[in-house]
Structures are given as structure tokens and as C-alpha cells.
């Protein structure tokens, strides 16, 4: 490479910042649009309380926006960071940070739109429980943000940790892989958690007395749906903190990059699938509160089975890191 380190790092930081905000803008906008669409339906169903619905819509959208705000913070930091004492490796880390935050904001943004929309619908159907619905919506969409928070943690660690003494090859691949792993794996988990939270708002409106059971089932379901994102986070941590011996061969770098890709892509499906399982459980707990325990157990077993593919991905990426 004939570019001097400082130019290279600036290139990487600007590209990373662009990717972070560009991809980060996708999810929250879709989620907020869904909330607004449902709010329209809610107002037309029950125009007398349009003020309450409007307020709830704005609150829901404000929470759904937080994934994009995380992306904005990371993008601004990437653009204005002081990069005077830079090495090539820093460039890889900054690029990875941008990828991680951008990809990681997609799922949470889309997902946290669902509880907002369903809460608006629920308020129009059952105005008496409006405050419970808003509380449940806030809890649900706050938990939805967890995958985006994980991405932000990895992105900020990539930006601020000192990788100065590591060999450029193959650490650059490990750092980009660390970003991809958490970023991609967060997509499915964010979306899945949102699906569960949406179903819980709908369920509470239908059966207000089930609120305790529904919220508990939602939280457990969302927590399990986040597991693929946590596997992604684990792989990212290993890639960031393990010291890799210097090696000029391409295969060593590619193994680390593929480890991140493998865990990242492997986490998308299980996250969405687990979210669907949680959505189903929450929906039916609301309609049949007496058998909440049974439903939760079946949900957990089903989620464990659907999660096995994420575990295969994790095993393969750990083999790529430690064996190859």
C-alpha cells in the first residue's frame, strides 16, 4: 500500500462514519413509519382520544429513534476524532466500528417500531389501560435496543482501544470481523425482540388483566431472542482481545474475517425465529392466562431448538479463530 498511515486512517474513518449513519438510518425510519401507520388506524377507529394516541405515537417513535441516534453519535465521533498518531491498524478498527454500528442499528430500529404501533392500536381499542400500554411499550422498546447497545459498545471499543502493539496482519481482519460479527447478529435479535414486544401490547389491550403475565413472558422471550446477538458480542470480544501471532499468509486473515461473518450471518435467522416464538407465546398468554407457565415452557424449548443454528455458527467461528 502506498498511502501513508494518516491518509489511510482518515479514509477509513470517513468511510466508516458514512456507513454507520447510512445503514443506521434504515431501521429506525421503517419502525417509526410502522408506528405512524398504526396510529392512523387507531385514530380512525376511535377519533375521540386522538390526542392520547398522538402523544403515544410520538413517545414510541422517540424511543424507536434511539438506535439511529447511537449511529449518529458513532458517525460524528468517527468524523471528528483526533487521528494524529495513527497506524494502519487504527484504520481497520475504525472501519469495523462503522460497519458494526450501522448494521447493528437496523434490527433494533425496525423492531422497536412494533410495540409503538401496537400500543397506539391498543389505546384506541381499550382507552382505560392507556397508561399500562404506554409503560409496557416503553419497557418493550427499551429491551429492543439491547442489540443496538451491544453494537455501540463494540464500535466504541474498536474506536478507543489501543491496538498499537498488535501485528497488522492478521489483526486487521480480526477487527473488521469483530465489527461484522456483532453488527450482523444484532439485526435478527433486534427485529425478533420487537415482534415479541408488539404482540404484548396487542395482548394487554385485548385482556388487560393479563398484564403481569404478558410482560413477564415478553421480557423472557425477548431476552432469549437476544441470545444470537450475545453470541455475536462474545465472538467480537474474542476477536478484539485475543493476541494473534503475526502471519503474512492470506489464510490466517481470512479465517478471522470469516469467523466474524459466520457468527454475524448465523445470528440473523435465529434472532428472528426466536422473536417469532416469543411473539406467539405472548399473544396466546394474553388469551389464555391460566396456562401461562405451560406456554412459556414450550416457548423456551422451541426457542432453544431454533437457537441451535446460532450455536452451530458460534462453534464454526470459534473453530476458525482457535483451530485454523
Amino acid at each position, binding site marked *: 500500500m502506498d498511502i501513508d498511515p494518516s491518509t489511510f486512517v482518515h479514509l477509513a474513518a470517513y468511510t466508516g462514519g458514512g456507513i454507520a449513519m447510512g445503514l443506521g438510518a434504515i431501521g429506525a425510519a421503517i419502525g417509526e413509519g410502522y408506528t405512524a401507520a398504526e396510529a392512523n388506524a387507531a385514530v380512525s377507529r376511535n377519533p375521540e382520544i386522538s390526542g392520547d394516541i398522538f402523544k403515544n405515537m410520538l413517545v414510541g417513535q422517540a424511543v424507536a429513534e434511539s438506535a439511529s441516534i*447511537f449511529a449518529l*453519535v458513532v458517525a*460524528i*465521533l468517527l468524523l471528528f476524532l483526533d487521528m494524529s498518531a495513527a497506524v494502519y491498524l487504527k484504520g481497520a478498527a475504525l472501519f469495523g466500528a462503522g460497519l458494526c454500528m450501522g448494521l447493528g442499528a437496523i434490527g433494533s430500529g425496525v423492531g422497536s417500531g412494533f410495540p409503538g404501533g401496537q400500543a397506539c392500536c391498543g389505546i384506541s381499542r381499550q382507552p382505560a389501560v392507556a397508561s399500562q400500554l404506554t409503560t409496557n411499550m*416503553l*419497557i418493550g422498546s*427499551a*429491551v429492543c435496543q*439491547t442489540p443496538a*447497545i*451491544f453494537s*455501540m*459498545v463494540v464500535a*466504541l*471499543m474498536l474506536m*478507543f*482501544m489501543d491496538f498499537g502493539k498488535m501485528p497488522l496482519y492478521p489483526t486487521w481482519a480480526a477487527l473488521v470481523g469483530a465489527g461484522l460479527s456483532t453488527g450482523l447478529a444484532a439485526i435478527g435479535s433486534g427485529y425478533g425482540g420487537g415482534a415479541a414486544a408488539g404482540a404484548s401490547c396487542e395482548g394487554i389491550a385485548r385482556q388487560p388483566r393479563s398484564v403481569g*403475565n404478558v410482560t*413477564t413472558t415478553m*421480557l*423472557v422471550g*425477548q*431476552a*432469549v431472542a*437476544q*441470545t444470537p446477538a*450475545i*453470541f455475536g*458480542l*462474545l465472538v467480537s470480544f474474542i476477536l478484539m482481545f485475543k493476541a494473534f501471532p503475526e502471519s503474512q499468509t492470506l489464510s490466517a486473515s481470512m479465517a478471522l474475517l470469516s469467523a466474524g461473518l459466520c457468527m454475524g450471518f448465523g445470528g440473523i435467522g435465529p434472532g428472528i425465529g426466536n422473536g417469532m416464538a416469543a411473539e406467539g407465546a405472548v399473544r396466546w398468554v394474553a388469551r389464555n392466562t391460566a396456562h*401461562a*407457565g405451560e406456554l*412459556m*415452557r414450550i416457548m*423456551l*424449548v422451541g426457542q*432453544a431448538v431454533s*437457537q*441451535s443454528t446460532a*450455536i*452451530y455458527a*458460534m*462453534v464454526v467461528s470459534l473453530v476458525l479463530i482457535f483451530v485454523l
Partner: protein
Amino acid sequence: MGELGQIHQLVIPFLGHTIRLNLEVILMTWIVFVLLIIFGIATSRRKALLPRPMQVLGELFVKQFYDLTEDALDKEMAKKYGPLVCALFMFLVLSNWLGIIPHLEEPTKDLNTPLSLGLMGFVIAHYAGIKSKGFKAYAKEYFEPMFFMMPLNVIGELAKIVSISFRLFGNIMGGSIIILVVSYLTYSVILPPFLNAFFGLFVGTIQAFVFTMLTVVYISVQIK
């Protein structure tokens, strides 16, 4: 921003190995212990049929968590595991709230705390499983649906420890990093108190509850 990821450690050489103690975490954990003991004394001192406010608070709290445990397990089991569930939640919620006080830090921000609590829950769940089903039936579950799935089933069980502890760690750590970065960007004007309320009080309570519920649920999956 340089303090990101730095911790004060006490390194003790011991029989050829070195023991590393994270001093701040230990200190913060002890603060949480002391606060919890004070809460316990305040709620149970001067018990009466006509309860005083503190006693009402304590009773409401304990009742709530006994009911939750009863829903997930059964009456007999709830008697056994109810105290554990209450204690776990109280410790976690106070740990997560501690960070909103300046100069104090959440003990849960250090991976060691959630990891050891997750390990504790894992051991308790499997002990309960072996005790209620017998070792043979317990071990047989690992060879389902097919015998060669055994290694993956074991990894799946171990992954539960990772997921439960990293979920708490990631959320608390993420919250404190976000507060740090935003305080740095805004020179600590206006925004940080709101972020402290959101990440410290709100997310901290939810994550403590999620951790506690997952521990109960893991026990209930094992015994049935």
C-alpha cells in the same frame, strides 16, 4: 476518554500463580451488601400486625417475588427458591442503580460479577434438575433427539451461562459507555442526568428483572 476499559487491580503472587483482585468492584459490591443489610434491618425491625411503611414495602416486595416464583415453579419449590430469587433481584437492582451516584460504579459493569451469578444459577438449576428427576433421566436428555447430538446439547447448555451474563454485562457496560461518551461530547451539560435515569434506573431495573426471571425459568425447565 482514555479510562475506557481500564481497571485497578491488586495482584497477589500465590504459589507460582498470580491472583488478580479488581479492587473497585469488590468495594462497590461491599457497598451494595451494606445497603441491602440496612434495608433488611429497616424493614424487619419492629414487626407488627399493623405494619409501618417500611414493613409494608418489604412485605410487598417479598410477596411479589414469591408469587412470580410460584407461577414459574410450584408451591413446594417456591418455598425453597423464593429467598434466592428475592436476594438475586435485590442485589442486581441495587448494583445497577449504584452507578447513578457520582464516583460510584456498578459492580455489574465488570464481567466477573454477572458471570459468577450466571454460573451460580446454572449450577443451582442443574442441581435441582438432578434432584427432582434423578441422574439417569437428567443425563438421558442430553442424548435426545439423537445420541450424536450430545456435544451440541452440552454447548447449548453452557451457552446459557454466556448469554445470561453477557446480556447484563453488555447492557450496563453499554449504558455507562454511552453516558461517558455523551458527557465528553456535551461537556457534561444537561443531557447526562436523563441518560443516567434511563440507563441506570430504567434499563438497570429491567435487566435485573430479566436476569432473575431467566434464572427462575432455567430452574423450571430443568425440573419439569
